[in-house]
């Protein structure tokens, strides 16, 4: 299972960030309201979305664990829950492997 950014979701990471923090802005175009994700939430979206289908779920969990300094086993469930939330909100697209790939 991999993830992609939906074609009409725009995203922006300001160049200036507070030390130790990460802020990400998202908007579903053309009519959505802008949203903000911060810190771990932003890390999860970036790790999943920016890979553009190249990262599997374990890769996302590992990337977030490295970014946050947390143990991947301890954060895995939370990351999965949040990925499901982002997909449900239309902020990520979820790609399932085809029968030939599985």
């Amino acid at each position, binding site marked *: 299972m991999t993830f992609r*950014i939906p074609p*009409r*979701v*725009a*995203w*922006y990471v*300001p*160049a200036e960030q507070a030390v130790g923090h990460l802020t990400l*802005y998202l*908007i579903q*175009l*053309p*009519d959505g*309201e*802008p*949203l*903000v994700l911060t810190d771990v939430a932003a890390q999860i979206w970036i790790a999943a979305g920016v890979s553009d289908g190249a990262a599997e779920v374990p890769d996302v969990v590992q990337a977030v664990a490295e970014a946050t300094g947390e143990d991947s086993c301890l954060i895995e469930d939370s990351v999965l829950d949040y990925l499901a939330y982002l997909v449900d909100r239309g902020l990520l697209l979820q790609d399932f492997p085809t029968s030939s790939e599985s």
Partner: protein
Amino acid sequence: MSLELPTSAGVSFAHAAVQVIAVGRVIDVLHIKGPAVRNLILAEDTLDDAASGHFTEKLVARRSIDADVLVRPSQVERFLEAVGQHGWRLSVPFADGSTFEHAATLVHPSLAPVDVHRRFPGVGLDPEEAFDRLWRDHSTQAIAGIDSWTPSVAAQRLILLLNAARGGSNHDDRDVAWNRATAGEQEEVREIARELRADVALAAATGHLEEYADRREHDLWELLSAGAGTPFQRWRARIRAETNPVKAVRTGWRLLVPTSHRMSLEAGRDLVGLDLLRAYVQRLTLGFGQTAGLVGRRVGGRITQRRLRPRTRG
């Protein structure tokens, strides 16, 4: 309550929104200036270590407060109608924008404003033909993650320079778009300027205007690039720069009698009623007074002083 975006995010999202709408409606737009400018143009080598001669490439940051787009002139009405269906409102119509009437401003509740250009000051080619030329070698650049149509690198340099030419002599974009370009890159800009009939304006931006002293646009760009000239001198230069008498008359009249919105902008306050009327009278008096002087000199006779107030009898 809508999230308050940093300006840079609002501008990038505005560009992205325009792109999505344009694609959906099959409208040709080109994103210009701001985040649409290629990193190639913005890159500057900074010497890190004099001893080792090591350079680091860094990007010259651009600060924009709005998103600029150039719309195919024949599709402008369709574009305005399309964006209007997605929350954008026309804040400043074309007639009330610059004295060139080349751009209108759209505003949105959540995003940065968009300056919609239907042509670009300095480009003498017919606007639709000019857009065709720019569209011919356009490319795409991701803005806020959305692939957006942009002019070629050479065309982007030219647009920055034309903008700088109107902004006076100390404009940073001259350095970014010209001084730090290679000889080959500069020639590419000159070539596209010739095709767009923007060579006089480009010369004004790059300090070579004296080579175009015989061109009808020369005086105008001399004044604009220097930020100089009285209102009458600029008015006269604008008329002289027009390509045909009909346009010249229209331009002359529009500059003398701008819209009430533009009058208010120039006064720095809302003008209505008697205040607006007084402002128009003052503007027309100044214009016609100086015009009468010009006419007087041309016919070789004495300048007739017009009485603007009735005679009083003591």
